[in-house]
Each structure stands twice: as C-alpha cells, then as structure tokens.
C-alpha cells in the first residue's frame, strides 16, 4: 500500500477493483465502511462477480475477467475528455511535461523495440529526451509538445471510448459512465479517491500493466501521496509484505536491492548497473534516493558476513549467489519437470534434485497441478516444513486424475518437518500498510514441532559443519556467514530484528562536526541517513531501519495517539520506510508546500521544514527544490514508465487463453511479451474448444489451502462449488445444488453448482461471453470429509513478464452437467 488501511477512511471515493476486500480483507475493509458512514464516501466495485463487497457498494459494474486495463484507460480518457483531472498536480508531480525520444512509437498493438523472436522489448526507444544544451530532461510545462508524456498518453488513451470499453469489457456503457463519473470526481484538489486492489489484478499475463494503469490514473487525478488516496495493494497473507521486503523472490535482496547476476563480477560493476542515475534538471531536481544504494548494499553485506566482510574483499560480494537466468519458482518447477534447465544460460545442466519448502504448498498454489505433481516426482528428495500434512508432502498419493506417476514408481524421498503455526511463535507481521507489528506467542508448539527459525538454523549449522570438515566448492560462502546469535541453534527473533535494523560497527563521525560521533560502535542505528558505504554500519534491510533503535523494539508499540486525526497513529508499530504512514507524501502539497486539501494534509511546509506525517523528502528542503517521487531518478511520478518489460503505457491485451480476438489489434491479441512454457504439460486452450471464461478466488470463510483442516471453518463453507450464472445453467440443464463439471486444456474437475444472479451474461465484441468461477480452498489431503478438487488443476502456466506471476484469474473452460 502507498497509504494504509486506516487511511482509507479519509477517501471520498473508494474503488475496489481486482480485489474483494469485504471477503478477503474483512478487518481492513472496516475503513471503507467508515468512509461510507462518516464521509458519505462512495464505494465503487468493478468485478466479474457481484461479491460481498459489491453487496455493500454504492455502485457495481460487471466486467469480463482480465479486461481491467481497457476499463481504467476508459476512465482516464473520460477524465481527459471532460477536464476532470488534476492539472496543477500533474505538472509538478508527474512526468506529464517530460518529452520522450522520437524513436518511441506504438503501432498495431506493439510498442517500438519489440524483438519477435525473443518475445522481448528493447526498452531504449522509450527513453526521456535530454535537452541538447543542458543535458537535463527536456520538459514542456504547457504540456503541448507533441512528444511530451501528456500528449502521448492522450493519444494512446483516445481509442478507449465508452463504446470500446463496452465492446472489450462487456460493461454496459451506462454502468461504465457511472463509475467513470464518480472516480473522476476526485480529479481536483478538494476531493481524493483511493484504490483497493489485490490478486484480481496481479494474477494476469498483463498483471503489472493493470496496476500501472491504476497508478497512472491515480497520478492523473492527483490522488497519489495524499491522505485518502493512493494505490493500495491488499496483500493476501498476514506477512506477505514482510516476506517480500526480506527478499521473498529470487530477483531481490532484502530492501528491494537487486540480486547480482553472474556477469557482475565485482561490487563496482554491480553497483554501476543496479543504482540508477539521473539527468540534471534545472527547476525541480531529483533527490534520486537510490543514489544511496552503495550504503544500503555495503551495510547489507556487513550484516551478512560480519567481520569477514572487508574493503579488500569487496565486503564479501563475491560470496553472494549470482543468478544466470530466471529462478522464480515457476521456472524452477519447469526445470524440475523437464529435468534440465532450459531457462538459464547454457541450459544443459540437470534440473534441481532437491527442494525445500516452508510455509508454502506448491502443489496447491502452482498453476497446472499435474505439472507440479509430476515435477516433484522427479526429485531425489523433498523437505516440507508445515504444521499440516499438506498436498505437497503427499504429492505421491495424489488422486489418479491429476496424472502423476503411480506411487510405486516415485523415488522421491519426502521429509515432513513439523513446524509451529503462527500463534505458536513470536516475531513480526508486516501488514499491507507496511506496518511491522510484533506478535506474541500464544501457546507452545505441540509435540515435537519446532519454530521455523530453529529448523532452518539447525540445518544451517549442520551444513556449515560439513563445509568446515569436508571443504567443498566454495566453503567461504557458508563459513563466513555472520551467525552471532545468543542461541545459534534457535535464534531469538528480537535479536534478528535488531540485526535487520542494523548498528554502527565502528564509531560514525558527524559530518558537520567531526569531533562528535553520531553513533558509537555497537549502537543501534536510528535512520537510514546514518548508513555508510565504508563498512562502518551493518543493516539487514535498509527499509526496516528504525524499527529497533536504542528506544527498543518499536514494532511492539501500541499507542492510539493520533495527533493528525487522520488515523496515522505514529506510535503504533513501525511503518517502513522511516515510520512514514503515507508514501510520496510531498505530493499531498502544492508547489508552495500548502496542502491541496487543508482538511486532509499529508505534510505541509511551515517555512522552515515539512510537518505532519514523516516527510518523504529531505525534511528541510524548501518546496521547489526536489521532486516528490524521490525513488524515481527523474523525481516525479510516471504517467509513462520506461522501466517495465512490456510497455511504457498500459495497453489492453486479452489473456493468453483469449475469449475474443483483441478488438484494438486482432493481430496482437495477447501480451506479446508474456511468458509461457513449452513442455508437453504446458497446453493452452482455444475459444472454439473452451468457450467459457473462468476465474478463481478465495472465500472469507477459508484461508488458502490451510483451513480445510479446520472443522469450524469447514462448517461455514463445507465444500468446493462452481458459481454459474442462471441463464447459462439453464442452457446447460444444471440446477442449483446439482453437480457440474468444468474442463480446461489441462484438467477437469467436478463440484456442486451454485446457480446465481450474481454472475451475468455479458455482450463482448458483439457476442455473448459467459464467465463462471470457483474458489480454490480445497485439496486431497486431510480429513476425507473435507477434501475437494485442486482449483489450479485447470489454470495455465502463462505469466506476467515483469513478475512471472501466473494467470490464475482468466482462462478458458467448458462447462457440462456432471
């Protein structure tokens, strides 16, 4: 979230799209209700299904799954056509005035620089143009230059008329216009609107571009950085934000630093590629906060390798693993399934032989279940750390229909390690609002189960011992790891949090007065301004710096003090970065540092410094000195983003399994840069064979694949079902409560039909397109009374090219009476 849960109460308009917060985030959703009750805010829901969120919405508009970009682009076009956008805001806080290279083009569904053979874009033609005289960014503050971002965006959006939105999304024009009017009512200083989105946006082959469209829309309306505004990702697990912050995926290190790649042999080469540089700009220059990258990285290496990291050995940089290809888990499973690594340089080595999985159930969550099960059956060994016997641990006895080998033919040795559950250990949860909140252990883990950190620590110590005794290919990598915990076999998580926060390794001199120290050796650091790139500081994650200072563990704070009255609660937990509650909050003020809306100020300039929330700008830099978006090299928000892998502006593409040819450019129907695999299991269906659009989702009553082991919750939602619109059910002769069967190109499952008015017939591109859906909470393990089909048996392994997130939310099926 750019903002936070509580802040939603400050919104005039709440757009829930690609999310179903009433069902999946009921506690956070209270703030949307609060906005409705107290501010008379309008809750707008755009969803393929009339959900429990829609049930309490002011306006609901149906949409065909996966067509959100067309809808959002339509809203933006409406804003531009009616003048309902925040012009003063976009001039100072976005790249609307920036001129783009004349090499940039967009024709017939393709941006310039597309390499059809590789299926990838060369992004160099999407660059900003530099002023030839000054080498600064070329800008036109009047927004008239034909190649300025504002004009390019306007031209790009011009095709998304209400008629085109209806043709693509199936949303009747009157419903679309109702939504567009309400959302664009916030395109000014007096009003502000927020967006709540979740996996309904991310899990598409165009997922990142949907979110880009939302961010562009919010910038155009002037809603980013302001209390009550923002683009708010509702995370799907209690600590998934914390997991991502701490390097949850292969391409990042803690604090979103980049994983080094194999051709970056030295730290200098790595830093040269990883840390962005900026052009000079006269009027409104950029802090380019990433210019501090070397401090974050060296401090991270000091935290990882302690005393062993020295200037002479590049702070141990050479010991860090380097990637030589895509190691996201979808690719790992492809390697595993094929028994080789075609997704990496060379590609001739064997695939992985072992796999360790904690707190994750790949057989459940991976698309194309049959491929997952077959991939695991090729391993020599599998370690599962879990508190239930999950589907992954029992993949070898999966029901026959999933197409795995017979148990007797599987050689994989499976170890299930009993782990403690969330209430059986302490530690922090980082919520969607970026708040690190300490939680206390409620009960001891039962039986022989252990905390995750104890299991991992003991594996680490045993491996280190083997390296110590037997040597190996690169023993330093393991032997030099700093492991200075009081109990090395079960590190105390407060100690770990202290390490993540970081400390001064040696005394740090005050640059203004070298006779003083700002920190003495061993002292906890207070803010990331104190980080150094000379090895005098260590820090496990620069973004979390401030959570554990001399004042103690701030994640434990529980003060209801609310000095702004806007629900920022600065003394509740710790909100990264720097305890800031609203990111980009400089954009909450105008060019002179005055709040756009004085009743909802983020930060304001008082003549000497910025006051209010923790400023997202140098606290004493006067208005006009720096741009509001300090993490972007150009210092402003991006209406045009030259950094993504599939285009600088969002364009509508159909899902990989497309229900229609793309009405905008039939020759380029789906995202040309989307990723898919080529094994015999990676089959994709055609609309002629699989005419019904299908989507998957979660229910309030269950939590992922976990709670079908819990009888109280099984009572609330006892089993798998398929939601089918009334008219379609009638056509197929399926009555409510009867059995129905759905089949995709990959698998076929059966369940109870839930015939409903909440899904409806949509007319798309002149044709009737039906969509159905089903929840994903069941599997074959656990109590036989509460087993059910794995939803992902049907979903395709097609992926977004930026995040490699699979397209769970839109695929094609056929529906029959069972």
């Amino acid at each position, binding site marked *: 979230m750019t903002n936070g849960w509580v802040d939603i109460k400050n919104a005039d308009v709440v757009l829930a799209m690609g999310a179903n917060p009433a069902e999946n985030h009921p506690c956070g959703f*209270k703030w949307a209700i609060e906005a409705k009750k107290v501010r*008379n805010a309008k809750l707008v829901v755009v969803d393929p299904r009339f959900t*429990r969120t829609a*049930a309490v919405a002011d306006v609901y508009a149906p949409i065909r799954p996966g067509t959100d970009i067309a809808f959002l682009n339509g809203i933006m076009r409406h804003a531009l056509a009616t003048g309902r956008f925040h012009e003063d805001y976009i001039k100072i806080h976005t790249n609307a005035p920036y001129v783009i290279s004349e090499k940039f083009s967009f024709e017939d569904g393709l941006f310039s620089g597309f390499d059809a053979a590789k299926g990838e874009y060369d992004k160099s033609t999407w660059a900003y143009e530099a002023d030839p005289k000054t080498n600064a960014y070329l800008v036109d503050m009047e927004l008239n230059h034909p190649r300025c971002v504002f004009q390019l965006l306007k031209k790009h959006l011009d095709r998304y008329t209400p008629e085109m939105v209806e043709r693509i999304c199936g949303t009747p024009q009157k419903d679309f216009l109702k939504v567009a009017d309400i959302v664009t009512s916030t395109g000014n200083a007096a009003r502000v609107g927020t967006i709540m989105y979740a996996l309904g946006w991310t899990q598409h082959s165009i997922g990142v571009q949907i979110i880009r469209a939302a961010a562009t829309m919010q910038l155009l309306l002037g809603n980013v950085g302001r209390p009550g505004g923002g683009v708010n990702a509702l995370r799907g697990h209690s600590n998934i934000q914390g997991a991502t912050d701490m390097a949850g995926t292969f391409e990042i290190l803690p604090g979103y630093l980049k994983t080094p790649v194999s051709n970056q042999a030295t730290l200098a080469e790595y830093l040269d590629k990883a840390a962005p540089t900026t052009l000079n700009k006269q009027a409104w220059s950029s802090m380019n906060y990433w210019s501090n990258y070397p401090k974050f990285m060296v401090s991270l290496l000091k935290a990882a390798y302690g005393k062993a990291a020295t200037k002479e050995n590049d702070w141990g940089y050479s010991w860090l693993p380097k990637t030589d290809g895509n190691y996201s888990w979808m690719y790992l499973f492809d390697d595993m399934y094929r028994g080789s690594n075609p997704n990496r340089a060379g590609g001739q080595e064997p695939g992985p032989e072992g796999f360790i999985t904690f707190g994750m159930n790949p057989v459940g969550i991976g698309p194309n279940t049959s491929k997952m099960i077959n991939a695991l059956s090729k391993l020599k060994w599998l370690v599962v750390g879990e508190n239930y016997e999950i589907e992954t641990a029992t993949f070898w006895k999966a029901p026959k229909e999933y197409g795995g080998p017979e148990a007797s033919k599987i050689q994989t040795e499976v170890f299930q390690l009993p782990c403690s559950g969330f209430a059986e250990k302490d530690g922090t949860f980082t919520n969607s609002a970026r708040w690190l909140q300490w939680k206390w252990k409620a009960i001891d883990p039962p039986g022989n189960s252990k905390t995750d950190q104890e299991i991992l620590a003991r594996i680490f110590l045993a491996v280190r011992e083997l390296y110590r005794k037997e040597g190996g290919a690169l023993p330093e990598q393991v032997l030099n790891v700093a492991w200075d915990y009081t109990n090395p076999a079960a590190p105390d998580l407060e100690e770990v949090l202290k390490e993540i926060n970081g400390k001064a390794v040696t005394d740090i001199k005050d640059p203004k007065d070298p006779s003083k120290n700002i920190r003495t050796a061993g002292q906890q650091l207070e803010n990331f301004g104190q980080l150094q790139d000379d090895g005098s500081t260590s820090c496990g994650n620069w973004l979390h710096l401030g959570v554990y200072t001399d004042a103690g563990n701030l994640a434990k704070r529980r003060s209801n003090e609310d000095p702004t009255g806007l629900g920022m609660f600065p003394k509740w937990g710790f909100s990264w970065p720097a305890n800031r509650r609203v990111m980009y909050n400089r954009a909450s003020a105008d060019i002179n540092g005055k709040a756009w809306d004085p009743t909802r100020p983020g930060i304001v300039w008082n003549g000497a410094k910025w006051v209010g929330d923790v400023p997202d700008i140098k606290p004493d830099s006067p208005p006009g000195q720096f741009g509001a978006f300090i993490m972007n090299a150009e210092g402003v928000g991006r209406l045009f983003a030259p950094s993504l892998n599939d285009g600088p502006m969002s364009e509508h593409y159909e899902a990989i399994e497309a229900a229609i040819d793309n009405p905008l450019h039939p020759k380029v129907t789906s995202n040309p840069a989307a990723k898919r695999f080529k094994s015999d299991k990676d089959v994709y269906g055609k609309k002629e064979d699989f005419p019904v659009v299908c989507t998957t989702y979660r229910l*309030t009553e269950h939590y992922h694949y976990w709670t079908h082991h819990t009888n*109280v919750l099984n009572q*609330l939602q006892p089993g798998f079902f398929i939601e089918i619109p009334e008219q379609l059910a009638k056509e197929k002769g399926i009555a409510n409560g009867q059995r129905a069967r759905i089949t995709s190109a990959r698998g076929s499952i059966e369940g109870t039909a839930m015939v409903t008015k909440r899904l409806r017939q949509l007319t798309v591109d002149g044709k009737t397109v039906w969509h159905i859906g089903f929840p994903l909470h069941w599997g074959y393990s656990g109590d036989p009374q509460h087993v059910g089909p794995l939803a992902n048996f049907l979903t395709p392994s097609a992926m977004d090219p930026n995040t490699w997130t699979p397209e769970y939310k839109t695929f094609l099926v056929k529906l029959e009476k069972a």
Partner: protein
Amino acid sequence: MAASMQIRRSSASLRGEDSLIRKLPVVSKYIDTTTCIGCKACEVACQEWNDLKVVKTEQTGTYQTMPTLHAEYWNLIKFSEHDLGDSLAWLMRKDQCMHCADPGCLKACPAPGAIVQYANGIVDVNPDKCIGCGMCQTGCPFDVPRFHEKTAKMSKCSLCVDRVEVGLEPACVKSCPTGCLHFGTKEAMLELADTRLLQLRANGFTNAAVYDPKGVGGTTVVTVLAHGDHPEWYGLPKDPHIPLGVRFAKSILKPLGLIAIFGAVAGMFGHYLRSGPKEPHEPPPGGADQSGTTKETRP
C-alpha cells in the same frame, strides 16, 4: 445479581405481565444490514463463546452456512439475491433470537419459569425449568427456539446474558469487523439507526427502515434494512404477531381457565356454606383393616 438481571416476566407465572417495580433501560443489539458483509465472524464467535458444537453442513448451492438456525447454531447470516431491475441486491441478515418485548415463546411456555425476560429485556431459557416440550416454538413468530437433542431442552440465543451481566457486549458484536453490530440501550440503538436511515434515504434508499415490529411489542434487536418495505426479502416476517392460538390460549383461555378454577373453588365454598361438611358414611365392617392390608402389599 445485577438489577438488570432481575426477572421481569416469567413463563406460566401467575404473577402477571410485569413483576418488577423498577423500570430499567432495555438493552439492544443494533444490526445494520447495509454494512454487513456476511463474513460470519459473528456465527463463529457465538458458537465459541457459548461452547456450541460444530454442526455438520453440506454445500447445497449457497453461501449460507445452513438452512435455518440450529440447537448448536444460534446465529446465522441469511443470504438472499434479489433482482431490482437495473441492479442486484445480495442481502445478508444476521438471524438470531429477536428478544421481543412481548415474547411469544414466553407466552406459549407451559413450564413455570422456563422462559424468562430479565429487567434489561433479554429473553432467556432456564434449562433447569425447561421441560423441552417445544411449545415456545409455536409461540415464536421468528422460528427461533430449537430442541436440543442431547439436553432435551430448548436452545436459543441468550444475547450472551453472561457477558451482558458483567458489562460486556454479546460475542457477535465483539467479533464484527465492520461495525455493523452495536450494543447499548434500545434508545441509543434507535438513535444510531435514525442517523443511518437519514444517510441511506439521502443516498437513494427511500424505503430504508428500521425493523422493530410493533406486533411483538418491538424487538430488542434493532435491524436497519435498505429495503424496509420488503422485510420478507431478508427472511423477516412483514408483520409478526404471536400466533393466534398462543395468544388465544394465553389471553382468553388462561383467564377463562383461571375464572373456571376460581369459580370451582368459590362454588365448592358456597356449597360448603350451604350444605355444611359432608358426613362420613358408616364404614363397612372390617373395611379399614382391609384397605390397610391392600396398601401394605403393594409392590
């Protein structure tokens, strides 16, 4: 015992309608169906607080946990879909005992003290006195009381009387994430409802209304409905009354019965006055001994 827990009314009591001198404020649960998201947290909270057992359910094509209330399930969100022409309403209403001011269950109950109404308005079953006859079911216009197979007593929502007694809100209210449930005096809850109604009407729900039906003297549960003209869409009776049979039995037959009883007693007394005590007949020879023998040989 808190004054609020003194018994105001009791089933099959001869003490009359209202046995308290003090008039204490009636407590109330506020349910705003327009901000209820059907998350069922209240269902689980109710079950856990009251130590009710898990009920075996089945997916039959609905989001609703089970068809109706159950002896082990006192709180159930009822889901229903209604086509409004250009839009759709997916209604969710928390169903439980309404704690009527004039409780049909209490009226219908033949067991003295088995159903009581406390001074604070809560209607409760006293299992010690309940005979499990099920008559309360016939008196309830909301189909709430259920026969519990194991205890052979009637079972229903007590408005968490044990929590309320010590100043806590009922478990369902405590668990509600959106704040669509509140607990307080009925006066305060009606005020809350009025504020919300004004907002709903201004936002186009011109028929929004509070469900507090007069036919049962009003309910201790105050429900805000966006479609107040159609309570039946929410599974609520439009104009609930205590069934005629029960009302007839209790308001006409019972006084008549009392008259008959007192009449009979008065008649007997009159007869005594007129005729004097009945003289014993001459005992048959040896009769006393015979009867004594018979009694003693009884098994």
